[in-house]
């Protein structure tokens, strides 16, 4: 099983850090001003809660990285994720429709990519892939897709030929 890029931990830590800073700078003073009578109790409770939240935010990216795994071969793509609730997704390559490669501003800074695999029913995504890994996966899926299209084309051509010949004979 292949893991996602380790940079995912850094990105998530940075986002959570920004979130904690925002809580400390704006959230806590706002609550204290809102309840001036219980200033001390509110301050203690909000500090405790912020500490708990910070610990969770610090641990979460590592657990996310450790649990997010994927593997692919010619037959199917398998994605596994989830910390408490585990998800396992199996997508057969025969059901593939198109593959999208997306990189937002943050992912671009860290030279990472997000892949969206579209089927006729739903879309599935693999986050935080290094450009090398994403390129390999996309090339692999593109090969499979082009093979699928060519197979379909030949089948269609055969069908058309068969129907034309049957019309001529009739």
């Amino acid at each position, binding site marked *: 099983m292949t893991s996602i890029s380790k940079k995912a931990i850094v990105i998530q830590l940075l986002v959570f850090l920004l979130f904690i800073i925002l809580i400390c700078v704006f959230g806590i003073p706002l609550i204290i001003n809102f309840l001036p009578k219980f200033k001390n109790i509110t301050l203690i409770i909000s500090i405790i809660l912020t500490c708990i939240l910070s610990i969770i935010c610090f641990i979460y990216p590592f657990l996310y990285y450790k649990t997010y795994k994927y593997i692919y071969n010619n*037959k*199917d793509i398998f994605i596994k994720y*989830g910390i*408490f*609730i*585990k*998800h*396992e*997704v*199996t*997508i*057969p390559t025969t*059901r593939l*429709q*198109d593959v999208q490669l997306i990189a937002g501003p943050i992912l671009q800074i860290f030279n990472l990519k997000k892949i969206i695999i*579209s*089927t*006729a*029913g*739903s*879309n*599935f995504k693999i986050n935080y892939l290094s450009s090398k890994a994403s390129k390999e996966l996309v090339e692999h899926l593109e090969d499979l897709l082009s093979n699928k299209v060519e197979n379909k084309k030949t089948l*269609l051509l055969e069908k058309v030929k068969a*129907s034309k010949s049957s019309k001529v004979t009739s």
Partner: protein
Amino acid sequence: MKNKFSFNLVLYKTFKKGYVYIILFLLLLLPDAFIDKKSILNMLQNILTASVFIVLCVVFLYNFLFWFFSSYNIAEEGITVKSGLFNRRHNYLSYNRINTLNRNQSFIQKFFRLEILKVESGSVSSSSNNSMMLYITTRKVNGVIKKLDFYTDSKFSNVNNEKKKKLDKKAFIYKFSKKEKFMFVLLNILAFIIFELLIFFLIPLADIFVYISFKVYISGLIAFFSITLLIAAVLFYLAFIKYYNYLIFKTDNNIIIKYGILNSVTYNLPFDNIKGCRVQNNIIYRLFRFRIVTLDVVGYKEESEKFKRLVKSGIMFPTISLIQYKTISNELIPNFSTLEAKFKSKSMTSFFSFKFIVLLLIYVVSSIISILILSFNFDPNGVTYLVTTSYLYILYVVISVMSVYLLRKNTSINIVKDKISLSYGGFIKNEVVLFKNDVIAVNKIDDFFKKRKNKASFKIHVRSNYFNNIIYIKNLDIKVYDELLTILK
């Protein structure tokens, strides 16, 4: 050769987008006896009239240009539609990708002698359009269908024949009868009435009048029952106007569904395009042994123009009795009869959500604390508060336990040669039958507790023509996962 849409499209679109301005313009044109002709008010009225007229002209011009730059072409290889003014769209669909043709004519369109012919490919991918719309007159629609019929080896011959009323009107297989229409209204409204009775006649037991006056209680009662009446009116509209003369015909290759008085709709559904069948029944429907049946067919869906994403699967039987459904379904859709359950969920505890357990714990702890406080310092208001909250909690617990019991009872799966039969849902039970080929992916969801009991939940992604294409079944044996994986291989 390029063909233009009907010019009536310009008038129809101008009316549809600018009817508010038209009404306002006509109102402003009316002479007002109270306004002095030389006053500023009169001048303002004139300016307003002129601006409304200009807006109307702009709307008309936009629609005219839209019509002028739009065209369609039926070539040997496929159909092309060019449309749009600022965002130019050039859509091409080859004949082998056309799945269904649907004719649609609304009440307003009838006035403008305009008809919409929807050419559906059945794709749900965001990158490609799933339907092309041709705005043409009824006469031209027949011609276009004839041409498409020629290029697709008589795939859509029935679409024309049906519109010309060549189909024998007495040869229908199913008719949404008056009795069923009344049952449709009654069964859908009954749940609301029971809920209201439960709330309003049990509330006095909780001594709620300490907090609210009797007047507020009565006005709440009236408000709730007015909402029920409103819902009943909507249901009556659906049953007697939207589904007016609801008939289902069967031809050699297609199922034809026809209904409507204001919006006359005709669906022509080839048997090959039927992907699945969903039988839905809530607790009241089950009590009276009635069902709602929807079909998942490429190109058969109900969608609103404003909310494109709210796409529903097409309804087949709005309300049908169980006995009638069994006989008709054998004739119409024999491949989609529900199978007996093979894997059933045995554990009931695993259905209880984490939220339910937390809320129950909070209630138990807070009640114990309240009783302790009240035993030391008696307060009648405190007792009333405790009784009120207990009443609500007990109601919540009873409903949750009932829901969980029904969930466990209803959840099952059976996989046979080429089909999967799924059953899920608590108060609203769903029975779905699908072809194995239409299963796209399988998502297994488990946690520590489920793993210990060898259970897992599954999300089954299905190829379908509407967006709710994930079936979520909870707490089944882990063996089911292996069976589901074999489908994908």
